[in-house]
């Protein structure tokens, strides 16, 4: 019990970080799984969402203001995602997609720095959630607990939508057999643009929600992109359950791992990823063919 007592907060932090990473990374995994597109602009979209928070939120603002910002971030993500879908539709090779999306990411990052400046910016949490609660005798930020709840909700919604609704069925069908879907009169390009837009919206909202924890500054897009890539590759490209497990693993490595092995802290993340990939190259929970034809 002593060990748990000493490390409970670290574990909880790991889950909170996992929640944020899941929200940001799941879009990347979805887009790759359904459209076979490697979107390296994903980090920049997440950063744009954080800057929406910088622009729209003041310290002491209420829950209403925060929700409005969330909607704005989602809308921005949707637009960016749809634009990216169109731009990448003509490029088929993964390497050229990487070239294109990284180019877009560099331009987007430069534009964000131009608008918001180079200083580190804070995104304030809504005033009702900005405080700390007592957890087993220790103080813990309430906001992080809420973020965990939101991520669980999103994961459930995603599962239900993809597996139980007709919209989800259309998405899965488009992946499995695009020709048949077209034959049924459904414009598959719209479906795919929708998936891209939705994934980007999740990334943008994820970036906003991560704002009170990670802040907003130039360079954060690269950090987030790298983390998201690690999460989806560990979990298995194209798999939502994989993204969840990958996020949980990465979250714990970055918090509990660092706490237990401080000397090796800077090697833990990539060391863990290399280990997983060498033992299980397809990822921990690879996608079933329905949500991703590529393992």
């Amino acid at each position: 019990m002593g060990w748990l007592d000493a490390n409970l907060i670290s574990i909880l932090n790991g889950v909170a970080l996992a929640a944020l990473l899941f929200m940001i990374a799941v879009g990347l995994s979805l887009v790759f799984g359904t459209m076979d597109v490697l979107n390296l602009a994903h980090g920049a979209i997440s950063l744009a969402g954080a800057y929406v928070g910088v622009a729209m939120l003041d310290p002491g603002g209420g829950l209403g203001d925060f929700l409005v910002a969330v909607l704005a971030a989602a809308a921005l993500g949707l637009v960016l995602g749809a634009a990216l879908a169109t731009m990448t539709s003509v490029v088929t090779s993964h390497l050229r997609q990487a070239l294109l999306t990284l180019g877009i990411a560099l331009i987007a990052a430069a534009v964000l720095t131009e608008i918001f400046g180079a200083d580190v910016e804070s995104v304030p949490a809504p005033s009702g959630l900005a405080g700390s609660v007592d957890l087993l005798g220790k103080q813990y930020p309430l906001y992080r607990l809420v973020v965990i709840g939101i991520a669980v909700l999103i994961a459930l919604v995603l599962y239900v939508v993809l597996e139980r609704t007709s919209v989800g069925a259309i998405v899965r069908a488009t992946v499995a057999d695009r020709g048949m879907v077209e034959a049924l009169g459904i414009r598959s390009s719209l479906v795919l643009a929708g998936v891209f837009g939705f994934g980007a919206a999740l990334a943008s909202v994820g970036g906003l929600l991560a704002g009170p924890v990670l802040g907003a500054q130039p360079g954060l897009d690269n950090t987030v992109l790298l983390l998201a890539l690690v999460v989806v590759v560990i979990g298995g490209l194209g798999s939502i359950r994989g993204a969840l497990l990958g996020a949980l693993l990465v979250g714990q490595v970055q918090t509990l791992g660092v706490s237990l092995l401080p000397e090796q802290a800077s090697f833990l993340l990539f060391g863990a990823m290399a280990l997983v990939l060498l033992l299980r190259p397809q990822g921990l929970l690879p996608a079933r063919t329905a949500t991703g034809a590529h393992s």
Partner: protein
Amino acid sequence: MTKVRAPLAAALLLVALASLPFVLAPYPISLAARILAFALLVVSVDVLTGLTGLPSLGQIAYFGVGAYTAGMVGIHVTSNVLVQLVAGAALAAMVALLTGAVAVRTSGIVFLMVTLAIGELTHRLADGLDAVGGSNGLAGIPAITVYPGGEPIILAGYTYWWVLTVFVLGFLLAVLVSRSPLGRAMRGVREAEPRLAAIGQRTYTIKLAAYVFAGAIAGAAGTAWTVQARFVSPGDLAFSVSAIALLSVVLGGAGSLWGPVIGASVVILVRDWVSGYLPGQGELMLGALFVLAVYLLPRGIAGLRPPRRDRPSPAQQEQPAMEVVG
């Protein structure tokens, strides 16, 4: 006739490059030397990505091994540049053998991420190792000498000539390997690995050989880098460098070897030279370059060359390296 044209053009280019120190001032010459060292790194990436179909973000690790080895040899052992070159390339090849033995078991995106891990772990190792200067980098590297007891080479023009020599040797080696049976085997792995395995070829050995060779080239590039900069720091091993190395390959046309060299030059010129006139806008310029290149150069810079009758068309060469997913 065409068989004469390409070597003739290459010879002309070489003469042009060799005569730069007569016309360029020291700063542009040192920029040119940096471009050549980086271009050799990009060649090593192309050997893996373009020729063997293994997209790599990890060559920077062996580049770093070469660079730091040359620096440490220079400070502690000898300023003889030949010793530094051999030590750097050999050590890099050894590290490539050790890491490649596990890395080439994977392919496609997984290989990409494993090499990313190798690159980043080496970067962090360099940052944490006080013996090589840690986060402050390795300073105080003496000027090189070419023969024992010779004068240290200080002037920018002469160090440029050494870097050019290393580049030409490395590039020629890569071209030779590309045209050898190993090169054909590498392209076979890229195009149809399962088929190759089915006829009894040991694809693992082929891939590992390519990996070690590429590692040695990257190590040599690293030693050349140290010669011209006389300073190595962990920042030289950052993820951003390996990313633009890979992207230079794509920009230039993966697999052609000379295309990525031009791609590398363009990337460095845009980022460092052009942004000298627009301070702080280097990343924006680079981003614009990449986006334009994807749409205007669908087969990379190498794709601008009109196809010969007896050479496979660039469209086939464009076959994405990652599609052969294991």
